């Protein structure tokens, strides 16, 4: 384990902010704060109906919040894969998979797990297992990004 590089406190506080956001969406607007679904509605990829302005505002808030954090707390570290192929392939699969599976880390992993939704528990177990397996397979094959 790598406790020296880990940031449990920042993780926990950041997580609390994410959960607070989910609570605002649920109790204020009666919606799940699921990013993949909101992106699909904001872009018109999924029919949004009256939800379009709400989805767009929520999605716009994400970079605004990150910017606010960078300006107040300090620089935000982002170490992206240098391989464009990894970004494109990863992005394509994430986009397709989250639509097919009706959600991602936020919708299933945060909102659904805390609701003890059997569907979200199954989805979260599936994407976590696949994530662990993918990184393990890449390590075994010696693929670096």
């Amino acid at each position: 384990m790598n406790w020296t590089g880990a940031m449990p406190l920042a993780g926990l506080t950041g997580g609390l902010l994410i959960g607070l956001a989910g609570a605002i969406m649920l109790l204020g607007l009666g919606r799940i704060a699921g990013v993949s679904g909101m992106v699909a509605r904001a872009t018109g990829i999924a029919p949004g109906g009256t939800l379009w302005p709400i989805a767009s505002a929520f999605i716009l808030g994400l970079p605004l919040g990150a910017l606010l954090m960078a300006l107040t707390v300090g620089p935000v570290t982002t170490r992206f894969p240098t391989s464009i192929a990894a970004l494109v392939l990863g992005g394509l699969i994430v986009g397709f998979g989250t639509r097919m599976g009706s959600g991602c880390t936020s919708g299933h992993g945060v909102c659904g797990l805390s609701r003890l939704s059997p569907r979200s528990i199954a989805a979260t177990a599936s994407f976590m297992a696949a994530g662990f397996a993918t990184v393990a397979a890449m390590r075994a094959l010696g693929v670096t990004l």
Partner: protein
Amino acid sequence: MMRRVLIALLAGVPFGAGLAHSGMSDPARVRAFLDLFGGAWDPTLAFVMGGAILPMAVAWRIHRRLDSPLADTSFVLPATTGITRSLVGGSVLFGIGWGIAGLCPGPAIADLVIAPVPAAIFVAAMLGGMILHRLLPARPVKRPNLENSHV
């Protein structure tokens, strides 16, 4: 509508701030969490998940006592039961992409202002994947199940 849009923005901002603060928006940290066999497993993301689930668990309890959300007419929530092949298959695919790039949808969008170029490449590909899913027929054509026809 204006009030609901503001509430959605008010939810998006702490969400993005939380992603940035927690390390969730750092693909290398996400991959370090998913890397169980590298000898330097980074547990940070478990704290993010735990921290996010706490307020949501409280919110679900409050939800039970409400007839409608505070600023809208009714709750519009997904079904909780019915574990389908597309739910599991789609989630497995998502996990593979998450493992490859270290990014899921929220952090990728939040990162558009932190690391615009790689984030935009990922987000563009992600939208492409979503469109591809939309273009495919919603339900595969059912073929007669010949394997079981002798029963």
